[in-house]
């Protein structure tokens, strides 16, 4: 146990896998502070309100994670898949994104939405290709249903999902002319990653998908168009059908490794590629079960998650950026304009750019997208305009006992960054607060909130 490493607040290299994935138990060296609570809520949810942060601080890490992984409200049935309403299915521009964003804000089970968003990028299916609002909504429901379930089941469901076939330009596959788009994605991005298997494997696997057509929004099977012959895929021979291909490719060790790496990037760090040895225990167990919930839980509860290796080692996506602001402000914003504002800065829910999903990380950030983020934040906090003054920085600060400029500036910094910024930044915030000696009205609160949002660390998760 590299206890000395914890004491120094750095992580040794190579990281000891046993220590890394053991449960985090706070001690004298690494206390359970607001810093870690904020970190947890940014990763496992879309941010938190002040009350949630305080409650978690009292409850401790493992009990808080219990609540994120298995919310009592969900056990009580409060999060039944309601709201797949007509608008969502209409395919109207922005309807799906608006509905989903609202759900992300309101759900008692944000971890599920967070993982559904992960799978949305992973599968890379876009409304622009599916061109059917109902099928796209069904696709997202499928991702949500299996978001923390078995990846094996999710892939089997995907192999029966018409949106998958349409989104991969695979709406027809005849015996005489197999369409290999589905097989290519299945053996590549969806499992082992690109470039692991060879073209021949893809060609053979494509034959297993012959006979499947999407007709008027339904996935249909035509026996006479199915190639019943023997196919050799990843060295396994048989008269394979789609479900066999899913099974075979998941039996390949690289599949579990590739998914674990992707989820590591999603939950722990985008900065450094993890060592093979660090991930090995997770890969071994995931390869057996393909239990996503268990993998996510292990990562969230771990020492590594609550270490500098993970802390602020991800760039917030536009969705995380905007929802983090709304969660802190304890209100629902109009999500139709929000959806289109997020599209303008690079993340259109329902429309990942390619089947590889959003590249994420540093790619989110350019001068134009950063300006877009800051302008969006300002608009969300504005008393008028598209967001209708739903987010009121002044009333939230006062509600939590920070009525004066100095206190409010500190409050926003604690709420969103848990006060964990350089001393010079704190000083800057205080000076700005002092300058606002006699704030006229509540406009000052909005400026104070914006100032915190403009701190570089705010862009990080």
């Amino acid at each position: 146990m590299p206890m000395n490493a914890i004491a120094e607040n750095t992580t040794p290299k190579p990281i000891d896998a046993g220590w890394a994935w053991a449960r985090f138990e706070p001690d004298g060296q690494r206390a359970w502070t607001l810093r870690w609570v904020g970190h947890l809520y940014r990763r496992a949810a879309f941010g938190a309100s002040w009350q949630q942060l305080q409650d978690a601080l009292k409850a401790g890490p493992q009990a808080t994670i219990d609540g994120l992984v298995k919310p009592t409200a969900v056990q009580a049935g409060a999060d039944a898949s309601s709201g797949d309403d007509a608008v969502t299915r209409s395919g109207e521009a922005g309807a799906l994104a608006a509905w989903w964003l609202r759900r992300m804000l309101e759900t008692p089970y944000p971890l599920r939405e967070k993982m559904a968003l992960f799978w949305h990028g992973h599968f890379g299916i876009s409304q622009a290709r599916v061109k059917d609002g109902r099928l796209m909504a069904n696709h997202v429901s499928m991702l949500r249903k299996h978001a923390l379930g078995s990846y094996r089941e999710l892939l089997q469901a995907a192999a029966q999902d018409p949106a998958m076939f349409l989104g991969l330009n695979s709406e027809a596959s005849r015996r005489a002319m197999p369409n290999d788009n589905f097989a290519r994605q299945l053996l590549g991005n969806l499992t082992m990653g690109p470039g692991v298997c060879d073209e021949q494997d893809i060609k053979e696997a494509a034959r297993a998908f012959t006979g499947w057509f999407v007709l008027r929004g339904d996935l249909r099977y035509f026996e006479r168009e199915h190639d019943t012959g023997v196919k050799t895929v990843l060295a396994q021979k048989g008269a394979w059908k789609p479900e066999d291909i899913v099974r075979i490719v998941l039996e390949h060790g690289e599949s579990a490794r590739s998914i674990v790496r992707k989820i590591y990037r999603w939950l722990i760090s985008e900065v450094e590629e993890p060592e093979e040895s660090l991930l090995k225990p997770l890969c071994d167990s995931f390869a057996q079960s393909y239990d996503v919930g268990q993998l996510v839980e292990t990562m969230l509860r771990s020492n590594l998650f609550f270490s500098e290796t993970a802390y602020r080692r991800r760039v917030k996506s536009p969705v995380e950026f905007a929802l983090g602001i709304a969660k802190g402000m304890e209100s629902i914003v109009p999500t139709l304009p929000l959806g289109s504002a997020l599209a303008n800065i690079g993340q259109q829910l329902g429309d990942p750019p390619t089947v590889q999903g959003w590249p994420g990380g540093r790619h989110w950030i350019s001068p134009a997208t950063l300006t877009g983020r800051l302008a969006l934040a300002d608009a969300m906090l504005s008393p008028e305009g598209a967001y209708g003054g739903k987010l009121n920085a002044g009333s939230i600060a006062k509600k939590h006992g920070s009525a004066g400029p100095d206190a409010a500036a500190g409050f926003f910094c604690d709420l969103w960054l848990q006060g964990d910024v350089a001393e010079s930044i704190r000083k800057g915030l205080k000076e700005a607060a002092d300058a606002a000696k006699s704030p006229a009205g509540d406009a000052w609160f909005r400026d104070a909130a914006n100032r915190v949002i403009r701190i570089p660390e705010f862009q990080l998760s």
Partner: protein
Amino acid sequence: MTATRRDFLKTVCGASTLMALSPAVPEFLLRASQAAAPDPEGRQTALVVVQLSGGNDGLNTVVPYTNDAYGRGRTTLRLTGKDVHKIDDELGFHPSMERTLRLFRDGQLSVVQGVGYPNSNRNHDDALRDWHTARPGEIACQTGWLGRAMDAVSDPNRPSTPGVCVAPLPKPVLMNAEATVAPTVTSASQYVLRDLPQSASVEGNSENPLVGFVSRGLAVSYASSRQVQDVLKDSGNRVQYPAYPLAEQLKTVVELVRAKLGIRMFFTELGGGGIGGFDNHANQRDNHAAVLHELSESLAAFSDDLRHYKLQDDVLLMTFSEFGRTLRENGRRGTDHGAAAPVLLVGGRLRGGLVGKHPSLTDLDGDSPRHHTDYRELYATILDQWLGMPSQKVLGKQYKHIEIVRG
């Protein structure tokens, strides 16, 4: 860099920000200067793409008004020598395009004739996709030619914005990239951040590489905001733009070019708003005249504006449409989906004039002119000779260049 560090910071951040940053001015701001003005000495070229949605009738845009086959094919839509703005004894611009002829005479506009591709598609979506991806027929291709160009030139460690979509549309496939995000900026004012008294808390020193990375990006954002603000303030002698959506988009482009933000590629669009576009299967005459008027007037204002600021040599604009239209009218005073059509280029560094012959009207492809210039040759020329980006990498093979750009 000759200016002092303090002068530089003033330019980049504006005085109030500088106050907030002092006394310890982080080193990274100096590095950020390179991102804000990537090539302060040399000139940076930009490309503006104008999509004419719906399939523009090339034969009534650059009109072969003395051609017999044209006269026979067009009954109600025929334009004669009396109607057109004559380029020469054979060709003239549509009557709505008076100012286009003026640009042409000034050497600010070229017409590349007969542009298309083999076995071209006549379905709107499919043909548009072909023009956007530059991989005709590859329906699974997900990235656009400009998207791939952005990926080829961007460095994720050095925040920059190589391309933006100015059209108020969902992001076009043309700018779809595997890695680079092309934001939508429909007005230059979107680039302006509200000034907060004593704002910027940009701080660069942290163990975490992402903090420095975001800080550099923010420094450039503030600098950009400042630059755009200055541009928007200075609107004294501005050219009057007509009240058209395309003109509005092109005005935004010029403002962003003037602000020197390092944006290399812009996407704009005309005609996509449903009725009133270029897809005129019936009663084409007045609709087509209206959209061409919008195009011509908008291009002219754009060119005048660039020349006013002496930026015409830095910008090249190209139009394209998913296909041209049939030679013969369809009995409903309209025309149907065709093949090759002319591409218009606007800019100060063009060879000018007509590029390539007008396609034959007796040797047709499904009643439409055949192409003699592949659109990927045009793309390759623009990438290699105008943008200085590797066309082979973007287009998958080396296409030959056409003579459009002056050295």
